[in-house]
């Protein structure tokens, strides 16, 4: 067993998940590849969304993959950082909006 939870070399083995469940693995990768094709959103826009979400879900494999993908598309570091902030803002907003629940509870319980 590896002494660390994450090994960068494991990213290259992602496709191996089909070995233990071929049908579901294949369906997933077909879906995944379709999602990132040009559509109503450009592939570039989707790449920035993916980079942002990679940070929100704190996936080191995804961060590596979509940072490299962004560089390959000519996306600038300023654009990348803004995308991460967009994700971070939603994530922190999601925490802070629960403060309303806290306030409601305080107002109900406190005289």
């Amino acid at each position, binding site marked *: 067993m590896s002494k660390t939870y994450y090994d960068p070399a494991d990213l*290259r083995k992602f496709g191996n998940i089909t070995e233990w469940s071929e049908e579901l693995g294949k369906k997933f990768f077909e879906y995944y590849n379709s999602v990132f094709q040009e559509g109503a959103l*450009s*592939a*570039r826009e989707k790449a920035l969304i993916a980079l942002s979400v990679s940070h929100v879900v704190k996936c080191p494999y995804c961060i590596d993959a979509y940072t*490299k993908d962004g*560089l*390959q*598309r*000519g996306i*600038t570091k300023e654009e990348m950082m803004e995308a991460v902030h967009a994700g971070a803002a939603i994530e922190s907003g999601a925490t802070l909006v629960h403060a309303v629940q806290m306030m409601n509870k305080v107002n109900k319980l406190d005289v």
Partner: protein
Amino acid sequence: MLKSLKKRESELANSKRQLEILSNGIFQNGELPKFANKISESNQFPLKAKKLEILQINVGYMCNQVCSHCHVDAGPDRKEIMTRVTMQQCLDVIKKTGTHTLDLTGGAPEMNPDFRWFVEEASKIGVKDFIVRSNLTIIRANKKYYDLPEFFKKHNVHVISSMPHWTRGKTDKQRGEGVFDQSIKALLELNRIGYGMPNSELKLDLVYNPSGAFLPGDQSSMEKDFKKALLEDFDIQFHNLFAITNLPISRFLDYLIASDNYEDYMYSLVESYNSTAVANVMCTNTLSISWDGFLYDCDFNQMLNLPVNSKVKHISEYNQELLDNRNIVISQHCYGCTAGAGSSCQGSVA
């Protein structure tokens, strides 16, 4: 300014050392397949030369820039320069073969003292596409080069220039401080006299090389982004963008090893291997001629000192029959031309 690997006496200035690195390690222990084995899977080994269409002549390794990714290891300290005698031998071959494309490269080809003579003589022959690979900044480097755009126009030269990004930071990081601003000035000058304008016959194309250890993205998408940004920010226009993959040789190999990116980069190249691109790699219809007149399948093989697999080794003994259908000389660097949409001096090939 950075010095060339040769000037620094780096071990990577030695082509044998580069080839050792490219054949050992992950290619020796079987982690990754050697290029010959990979193309054998699709019955494309040995790779054969087809009809000669492009003569690419490297008129010297001297350059006013020292780009971090340069596969030529070019720079101001490189003194290898093609003589007029060798140029005349090239002209004789162009006449004899009826090659449709003549592609002058370097270094900065304009720094060869016989460059203008060569262009004048070559343009008299009337090849269909006469390319000069100009780094742009040379046009602004010295007063004696200021008239180059007019000179190119006079001889209907097709200008192909490197531009790694539409932002100053990325460009200067790869090509040197101040290169972006000088390149913009040169592009404006070329546009002013008609180069790169819509419907203009004065062709101006740009070359995009990634500014680090990653592959180029989709060429047409990159072209759209480049066109939009250069037009909006600087009112600059050009015709086509060629996305070219950096090959793991010379200064780019040095960078990959120093930054601990070599193995990951080779994995990226091999994982992006596209057998369709193999059929159209440039070495099959191109002949590369070095400053001293020796023949190679491509400019990369020239830098790795891998001469053509033929009895004919030098332009002075040129013989088309002996070069036709020759086996192309390959090594692991060739993965750079077959990754993704493929890569050549004219951009994607698949």
